C-alpha cells in the first residue's frame, strides 16, 4: 500500500516537474507546492486546501506556479515527497496534515532556502511556520445546535486520531451542547483514519444503532452525512459544507477557508518578507466559516448560535471559559478564566462529563 502511494507520489511529481518546465519563459514565478493527506476530491479537508491553492493561482495568475501531491501517507513517505518537491525548485511548501509535522521539520532542515508551512502542528523552525484554524470556535457554535436539536440526548462523534486538535473539538462541542442541554451525552468513536468512507459510514451506523440522533465528525469524507440522511438523523458538514450529501440531515457546517492565508503567505515570499510565524485564526478573520443554518433549526436556536458566532468573532466569548473541570474532576479553569493557547494547543484530556477513556 505504502509502495503504491510512493509510486503515485513519484508519478505526480513527474507531472509537476513536467509542468514547471513550461514556466521558464514567463520570468521567474514563485513556485508553491501543496501536500495533501487525502484525494483532492474527498469533498472535505483536502478539497478545501486545494480550493485555497486554486485561490492562490487565481490571485497571482502567471506570477505563481502551483503543484500538489495528493493522498500522501503521514510518515516516511511524506518526507520523500517533500524532499522531491523541494529539490524541484519549489519556493514554499504547504504540508497540510498534522502527521506531516516531523517530516516537515526534517526536510526543512535540509533545504534552508525553501520555506515550509505546516498546518495544525506546533513545531516551528526558521523556515517552518505553522498555521491552523480555531475550529473549536466553530465546534462551539455547532455544539449549541447539536445540544438543542437532539431528542434522544445522544450526540455521536466520529473522531479520527486522539491528537489535541481533535480532542479540543470534542471538548468544545460537548461544553456548548451541555450548556443548552444538561442531559446531553456524547458517544465518541475513534476510527484511526482521516479518510476511509467505508469505515466512516460503519461508525455512523454503529452510533445510530446506539440511539444517537445527531452526528458530528472529525474525519474528511461526507460518508457520515450520507448515512445520516439515509437513516433520518442529523449531522454537520465538516471542512466543506456537504449540503449535497444531506439536504435534510445537514443542520449547519464548519467550513475551512484557507485561501486568504495562502495568498498572504505566497505574497510574503514574493516580497521577501516571509518569516516563521504561528498563525491560529478563527471565525473573526474568516478562516473558520459557519455554514448556513438549516430551516429545520428553530428560530430561537438559530439566533442563539448566530449570537455565539458573533460574540466569538467580536472577541467577547471564548468557548473555553471556566468554571471547567477535567474529566477526572480536577479543576482546570476557574470561573471566568479562559484557556490559554498553549494549553489548547496541547490539549490531551477530556473535560468533565464526557464518558469513556481518551486513548493516548
Amino acid at each position, binding site marked *: *500500500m505504502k*509502495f*503504491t502511494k510512493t*509510486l*503515485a507520489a513519484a*508519478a505526480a511529481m513527474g507531472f509537476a516537474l513536467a509542468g514547471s518546465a513550461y514556466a521558464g519563459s514567463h520570468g521567474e514565478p514563485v513556485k508553491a507546492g501543496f501536500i495533501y493527506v*487525502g*484525494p*483532492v*476530491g*474527498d*469533498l472535505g479537508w483536502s478539497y478545501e486546501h486545494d480550493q485555497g491553492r486554486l485561490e492562490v493561482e487565481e490571485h497571482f495568475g502567471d506570477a505563481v506556479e502551483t503543484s500538489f501531491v495528493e*493522498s500522501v501517507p503521514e510518515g516516511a513517505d511524506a518526507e520523500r515527497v517533500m524532499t522531491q518537491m523541494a529539490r524541484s525548485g519549489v519556493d514554499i511548501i504547504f504540508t497540510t496534515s498534522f502527521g506531516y509535522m516531523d517530516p516537515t521539520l526534517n526536510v526543512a532542515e535540509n533545504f534552508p532556502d525553501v520555506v515550509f508551512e505546516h498546518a495544525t502542528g506546533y513545531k516551528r523552525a526558521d523556515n517552518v511556520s505553522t498555521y491552523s484554524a480555531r475550529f473549536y470556535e466553530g465546534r462551539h457554535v455547532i455544539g449549541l445546535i447539536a445540544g438543542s436539536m437532539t431528542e434522544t440526548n445522544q450526540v*455521536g462523534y466520529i473522531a479520527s486520531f486522539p491528537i489535541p486538535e481533535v480532542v479540543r473539538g470534542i471538548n468544545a462541542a460537548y461544553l456548548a451542547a451541555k450548556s443548552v442541554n444538561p442531559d446531553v451525552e456524547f*458517544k*465518541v*468513536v*475513534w*476510527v*484511526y*483514519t482521516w*479518510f*476511509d*468512507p*467505508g*469505515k*466512516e*459510514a*460503519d*461508525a455512523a*451506523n*454503529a*452510533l445510530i*444503532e*446506539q*440511539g*444517537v440522533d445527531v452526528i458530528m465528525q472529525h474525519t474528511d*469524507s*461526507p*460518508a457520515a452525512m*450520507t*448515512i445520516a*440522511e*439515509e437513516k433520518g438523523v442529523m449531522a454537520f458538514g465538516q471542512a466543506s459544507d456537504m*449540503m*449535497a*450529501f444531506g439536504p435534510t440531515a445537514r443542520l449547519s457546517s464548519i467550513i475551512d477557508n484557507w485561501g486568504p492565508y495562502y495568498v498572504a503567505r505566497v505574497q510574503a515570499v514574493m516580497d521577501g518578507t516571509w518569516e516563521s510565524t504561528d498563525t491560529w485564526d478563527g471565525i473573526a478573520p474568516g478562516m473558520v466559516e459557519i455554514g448556513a443554518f438549516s430551516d429545520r433549526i428553530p428560530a430561537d436556536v438559530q439566533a442563539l448560535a448566530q449570537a455565539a458566532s458573533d460574540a466569538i468573532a467580536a472577541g467577547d466569548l471564548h468557548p473555553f471559559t471556566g468554571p471547567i473541570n477535567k474529566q477526572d474532576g480536577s479543576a482546570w479553569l476557574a470561573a471566568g478564566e479562559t484557556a490559554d493557547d498553549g494549553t489548547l494547543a496541547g490539549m490531551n484530556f477530556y473535560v468533565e462529563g464526557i*464518558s*469513556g*477513556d481518551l*486513548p*493516548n
Partner: protein
Amino acid sequence: MDFSSLDPVAMMVLLIGAATPILLAAIGELVVEKAGVLNLGVEGMMIIGAVTGFIAATTTGSPMLGLLAAALGGAAVSMLFAFLTQYLLSSQVATGLALTLFGLGLAALMGTSYNGIKPPRMARLEVEGVSDIPVVGELFFSHDPVIYFSLFLVFAVWYFLNRTRSGLVLRACGENHDAAHSLGYNVQLIRFGAIMFGGACAGLGGAYVSLVRVPQWTEGMTAGVGWIALAIVVFAAWKPWRVILGAYMFGGITILQLSLQALGVSISGAYLSMTPYIVTIVVLVIMSADRKRASLNAPACLGTSFHASH
C-alpha cells in the same frame, strides 16, 4: 455497561456490509491466482467498478444495471492488465501496481461530475412471511441480493475449481503452465479469462461500496479494501470457503470494535483497530509454520510469466 443495547441483528447487517466488498474482490482474485497470475491491481479494479457502477446506476436509475456495469468496467480494465502481462509479458507485480494507480486516477476523472448525487437504493430481498420471523428472518432473509450472490459465487468457484474439468485445467495452468501447455491447453487464453473474472468480481465489490455501503461517490473511496482482499486470499490459503471466513472475520472485528466504542466500552480504540490486522498476521504465522503445507497451497507458478516458445 448495558450490552443488551448491542443489537446482534443490526451488527450482523453492518458486518455483512463491511465484509461483502472484500469477499467479492477476494474470491475473484483467488481464481486469478489459482490460474498462476498475481494481479495486484485489485484496488484499481474495485475503484473503477465503484465509479462505473455509480454512474450507470444514477443514469439509468437501476442498481442492478449499475452492478452489471461495474462488473463490465472491472473486467475491462483487467483486460489491460491481461494484455500487458499475457501477451507483452510485462512483470505482473509492476503491472498490477500500475493498474491500481491507473484505476484510481481514471476513476477520479470519470467521477468528477458525480459528486453529491444519490444513487438509487438497492431493494432488500424480502421473502413473504419468512423475512418477518424475528431474528432468524432478519438475520438470514432480509439482505440485498448482492450478499446472497456473493455467497453463491464462493460456492460456484469452489465447485468449478474442485469438481469440474475446466477448473482442473485452470489449476493446472497455475501449478505448472509448461505441462498444461504441452497437453494442448491455451495457457494465455485461460489466464486471460481468469483475469477478466477477477476484474468483474473486483468491480462488483467496488460497486457494493459506492451503491450500498456508502451510497455516494467520493474519490478513492475504496480506501485500501483491495489490498485487504489480496491479503485475505493468502489468509484463506487459496481455499474458497476460507475466503468467507477471512472476509467475515475482518468485517466482523471492524464492526465489533466500532460498535463497542459507540456503546462506551473503555477499551483503547487503537488496539481494537489493530485487531483485524493482528489476527490476520497470527493466522498467517500459524499457517506458514508448517512450511510444507504452506508451499503446497500456493499455486506453484504464481506470478511467473508464461511464454510458449513454439
